[in-house]
């Protein structure tokens, strides 16, 4: 069995989300900050007339949050008829990955990251961490 993953970078690490969950990847859109929003919500963007919430996973992955005006690419995910956008540094290629390359995450992973990362594929170039999109966007 193999599954297709859309890959992207946040910080140093490479992440992947099943291709079926992704509706599109986009370049930078200016974000309107939402004061008082929970940490991780990076503002609203205008996606062809739809107002879409963006999520910055960095704080939950133990990284510094993105500056509100920093340029960033977006990976748009459909959740329950709603589009939500993940902010990523760079969108990579779509990879077809064999399930036998998959391993569950080590117990040493920080609790915050453990909620997000379901496991890793061992690629030749490094590890591809798989994200639980629903957990990621339930920020």
């Amino acid at each position: 069995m193999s599954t297709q993953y859309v890959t992207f970078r946040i910080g140093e690490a490479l992440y992947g989300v099943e291709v079926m969950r992704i509706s599109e990847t986009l370049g930078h859109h200016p974000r309107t900050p939402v004061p008082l929003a929970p940490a991780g919500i990076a503002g609203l963007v205008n996606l062809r007339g739809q107002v879409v919430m963006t999520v910055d996973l960095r704080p939950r992955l133990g990284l510094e949050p993105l500056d509100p005006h920093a340029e960033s690419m977006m990976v748009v995910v459909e959740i329950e008829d709603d589009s939500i956008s993940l902010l990523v540094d760079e969108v990579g290629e779509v990879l077809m990955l064999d399930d036998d390359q998959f391993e569950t995450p080590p117990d040493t992973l920080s609790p915050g990251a453990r909620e997000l990362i379901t496991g890793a594929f061992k690629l030749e170039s490094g590890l591809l961490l798989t994200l639980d999109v629903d957990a990621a966007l339930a920020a």
Partner: protein
Amino acid sequence: MDDIDDIVREFLVESYENLDQLDQDLVALESTPDSRDLLSSVFRTIHTIKGTSGFLAFSDLERVAHVGESLLVELRDGRRLMDQHTTDVLLRMVDTIRELLGRIEATGGESGVEVDVVVAAIQRTLDGATSHEDAPASVEASVADEAPSEEPAPAAAPVSGIKVAAPAAPAPATPEPTSASLASPPAGAPTSPKPAGTPAGKPGAGLAPEVSEVTASRAPTETSIRVDVDLLDALMRQVGELVLVRNQIAQLSGSDTDAELTRSSQRLNLIASELQEGVMKTRMQPIEHIWSKMPRIVRDLAAACGVEVRLEMVGGDTELDRSLLESVKDPLTHLVRNAIDHGIESPAERVAAGKSSTGVLTLRAYHAGGQVMVEVRDDGAGIDPHKVAAKALERGLKTTEQLDAMSTGDLLNLLFLPGFSTAAVVTNVSGRGVGMDVVRSNIEAIGGAVEVDSDVGRGTTWRLRIPLTLAIMPALTVRSGNEIYAIPQVNLQELVALDAQKMRESIEHIGAAEVFRLRGSLLPLVRLSDVMERSADAADSAVIAVLQADNQRFGLIVDRVLNNEEIVVKPLTAQLKAIGIYAGATLMGDGQVALILDVQAITRRSLSGDLAEQDGRLLEERAAGGREAQELLVVGIGSGRRVAIPLAAVTRLEQVSPDRLELVGGHEVIQYRDAIVPVMRLARTLGSFQEDGDQLPLVVFTRGDRTVAMVVSEILEIISDEGAERSAVDDIGLLGSIVLSGRVTEVLDVPSALTQADPLFYAGDPDDHHADGHGTAQAHAEMVGV
């Protein structure tokens, strides 16, 4: 209802529609018992239900419809006259049918609904008057002959779909088999609305309300089709996107010199606008959709309350967005119930008051100023503001002083407070203390407003102000910091511009709370940057947007006002809604996203103290209460004694070091704002003793150009005297005592105390705005900024 097949579902939809029509027709029949049209319409509906239920093997339903039909045949053939009893029985039959349909919808079967009782009741009615008549079987035969000969009738209003009128479209007449033989326009229901008025020649009908006008202008079947609401919503979204693309193209072509492109872009502009308008219209439904249930409600209620009511409905074709229509239904029903239960008097009382024994309840809908107004008006006893005031006092909602200061309109607005009911007796209809506050919050939730007008002895008018649509609202866009926010116009009362000088001078403080004097009354101020918890730059100008929500008024300070515009409301995800201060988002002309402020939520949040934690919190909250509740500043004067001072009289609170007090001729004074101000020690005045600490708390009173500083031993709290028990105390300088926070607190007689310190404090009464205050410092004393 997955397990029900399409035929049954169609049957249910049709039947529900027709039952609504039936209710209306039956009530109308009672006042015009000889109307053949109405009878035929009622008859056809029941006949269809009977036929279809037989076909679908719903035997209970068939049984009920069958006996009902038998009764209707006698009525139609003139062998029986419509009277109240017959109407009752028929309405019961309708209720039972509705119950059966509900059961079928929920379970797919009809078991579990008690039908024998109603069947027996109808049978008794039949037997009672027609013992010599034909057996039902033969009646049925004649029915079958007759029904098809009726002209195909217009379809009744759909329940789950929206009717889309295809204007002037010569659509082929393809009446659906079920709806075609159903409802026909009720008699006395003109196809176009006309002004209220009782059509002449209608017999008065006992307890029953007359439906003098049902503005049922049903679109004929041939020119309308049914469309799924989801499809319309999807169209609406797509048109929204089209409009945005149009805006982008317009922007691009604006910078281009290509004439072709400019022309095309203008055409696109025009077409997109028209398309948008057209799609918006498809979501509109006439308000009579929710009015259609009123005749029945009025009839039943009038009978239950023992009053005579004639229902008049004007402007039923006024259209509202369908989502709004749903939200208006319950409040409207509540107002109608209220009007019958409390508004319209019993026939005897009415006659005694020189009015006709039948009360008139008018529902009126019309467009006004880009909004839809819906009025519920009765010509009953009206609401006595004094009774309202008495009730407010009894419930401890307001004090006598506050009530005295209120206008009639303010008093009537008390009706919207939670837990308020003037009904002398709690009935099963209304008067249980739930109601008007719910009506108001429901209407405000959709961006509307409720007003009430009442003339004692002449009646009451409730007025609902409803926006045309939720999808688009007029708003004011403002800037605070780097962000743009939209404020719904419905909450906006006025704008006050502040330049650098005014910023310094006219924003005054009570404790930490900022206030602004707006035509003499204090307006609590909230800085939008504080609400957003953003750091604010020291701007040299600002604008106060005076906002009103939940009966509270406050000023929202923003950096700049940008524009007045119609904005398209985009919903927010649950996480952002949960923040509680945004009503949605919108797109600005340049494509930027702007947040729409939820003014009601900000009011609740900012004016009840989430914002600031220190004592300014209370001050701000109290200041917001303004005239509504008397606020008391509670101070300590040593020996555990607590003294309350009406906050309205207080100008400022200060902390000074004891060495700033100086002695002049045996009296203590203090230099305060370039003036020498007499100091009084409250403890001494009231015969207590206090020791000076490092800091002396001062309560400063200013009136005109005279100021008195009062030394107290500590500032304890600011509290409302709502519902507190008072008792008179015969002591110099005190008005009495009151229980606050569970402790006995003395209430200071401010004028007498201040006159002791400065005999001239009230002498040169300046003729400015605070001269209105009963000659005491309890009026709004002058506020002095920091």
